């Protein structure tokens, strides 16, 4: 390893906050995670992108010592979750997409109890956070809507201003306005030097908030990349409609073209990266219409998958 793993200097973590080395969790034939190796750097927002069932929650649950790896290792702040969970948890905030609360408690009492579990850390932030989220603290939790319950979860995750936020599909069921506040809170965490590990199956969300992204599918990490690079390398499809049939093979030699196919007066082209050359080639003919689509998550997956994880 020989790398700097979450060393604290001047109360700021430098280096890598999370380091997974061949992290493996086996359940049966098809589930679990297989030899994940990645690092989350201090101060970054790391997206963990993958479809449902890919192993995102499994990975996150090993970080928090809810489950134990079958093989390989993971460290958080340079510590082993298996032996140092309380020390790690003291510096971490966690919010899953689905969770239970204590139904009979009032939201305020619940959050005050959670601040007490953290030696009082975060108590002062309960009211300001609730106000930002328009959460009524003085109601019993069983009276709260799904969205308001999510807000209670958000407050307990953010209130102690943790150095590391571990968020597992946290925006499920958040209304768009609250979602914006949520993204703002993530931005603020990064601004004060905190680190965020966010799992999601929603590409626009990852694009919006993350610096780097790891893509996981069927328990295997396909790629880790800057969000911008990933998008630039992603496949997208463009369909040019011409005034008369055009030979699709004229597009094929262009470096950015993956495939080109004639369909009557139209040519459907799959492009990787910039569109410039393709557009210039198409402009030599009479273009009636252009259809283009942003790459979907599936297409990015497909690309990462096809190349064996190193685009």
């Amino acid at each position, binding site marked *: 390893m020989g790398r700097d793993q979450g060393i604290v200097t001047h109360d700021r973590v430098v280096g890598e906050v999370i380091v997974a080395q061949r992290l493996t969790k086996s359940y049966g034939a098809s589930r679990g995670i297989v030899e994940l190796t990645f690092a989350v750097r201090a101060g970054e927002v790391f997206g963990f992108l993958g479809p449902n069932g890919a192993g995102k929650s*499994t990975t996150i649950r090993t970080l928090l010592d809810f*489950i134990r790896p079958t093989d390989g290792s993971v460290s958080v702040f340079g510590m082993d979750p298996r032996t140092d969970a309380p020390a790690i948890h003291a510096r*971490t905030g966690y919010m899953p997409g689905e*969770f*239970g*609360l*204590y139904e009979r408690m009032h939201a305020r009492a619940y959050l005050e109890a959670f601040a007490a579990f953290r030696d009082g850390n975060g108590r002062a932030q309960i009211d300001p956070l609730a106000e930002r989220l328009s959460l009524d603290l003085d109601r019993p939790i069983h009276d709260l809507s799904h969205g308001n319950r999510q807000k209670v979860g958000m407050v307990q995750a953010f209130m102690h201003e943790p150095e590391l936020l571990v968020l597992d599909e946290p925006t499920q069921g958040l209304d768009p306005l609250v979602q914006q506040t949520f993204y703002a809170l993530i931005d603020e965490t990064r601004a004060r030097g905190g680190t965020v590990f966010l799992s999601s199956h929603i590409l626009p969300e990852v694009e919006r908030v993350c610096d780097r992204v790891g893509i996981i599918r069927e328990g295997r990490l396909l790629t880790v990349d800057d969000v911008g690079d990933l998008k630039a390398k992603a496949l997208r499809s463009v369909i040019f409609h011409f005034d008369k049939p055009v030979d699709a093979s004229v597009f094929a030699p262009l470096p950015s073209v993956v495939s080109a196919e004639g369909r009557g007066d139209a040519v459907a082209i799959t492009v990787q990266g910039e569109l410039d050359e393709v557009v210039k080639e198409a402009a030599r003919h009479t273009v009636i219409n252009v259809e283009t689509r942003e790459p979907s998550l599936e297409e990015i997956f497909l690309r990462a998958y096809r190349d064996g994880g190193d685009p």
Partner: protein
Amino acid sequence: MSALLGVSMRSQRRAVIGWAIGLAAVATMYAAFYPSIKESASQLEGYLQNMPDAFRNLVGTDYTSPAGYLRAELFALLGPILFLVYAVGAGGRSIAGEEEARSLDLLLSTPLTRTQVVRDKALALLAAMTGLAAFLFVVVVVVGRPFGLTVPVQDAAAACAMMLLLGLAFASLALAVGCATGRKAWAYGVTGVIAVATYVLNVLAPSVAALAWTRPLSPFRWYLEPDPLTTGLHPANVAVLLGITVVCMAVAVVTFRRRDLAA
């Protein structure tokens, strides 16, 4: 007091009040029947002579005395049933219930250790059940008096203390099964089956020679023999029931620390 103990105790408050009302109602009802039972004492004693041995083991041989009546109606069957239903329910819910409701993840994402969580849940159970047993003691002493159903205060206290110890043994068994499996159904099922089986064994063993050896295995034997209502506390009986509790708590902590939590 730790914050988690406070939260856990508060979560049981309503249930404890409900069960206390239930126990008081049952105790009052039986106390109210006592004067008429006492009037027909001679007939009833004759009737009991003709009952099977197992029944007499359970009810005792002096049904019409205050201690005998209390034993038969409250401490031999209905009291333990009510007490154990609470104990098993609360014990099973403590960890497995939170795990199934998915509130355990957030709790364990704080700096609290799994051991601390089990400890505070267990202490909350102890507090709730001690409260119930103490309340039962007060009801037995206070409500019995106007109906002539009086036993020495220290004997009533001994019987309630033994019921508490029996309840703690089964509550910690349910807690341990819940800690080991994460499933309420397993906690209720395993503990319920063991409670019923050991109860039946304790009733049958004295009169069925082939089962005699099983009797020391039953917590109910240590709960009720010798009868605390007439003979007070016995160190060996207290030690056996406390021992079961201690072993179950150790199993609860060890299994809960070791395993993966359900997603």
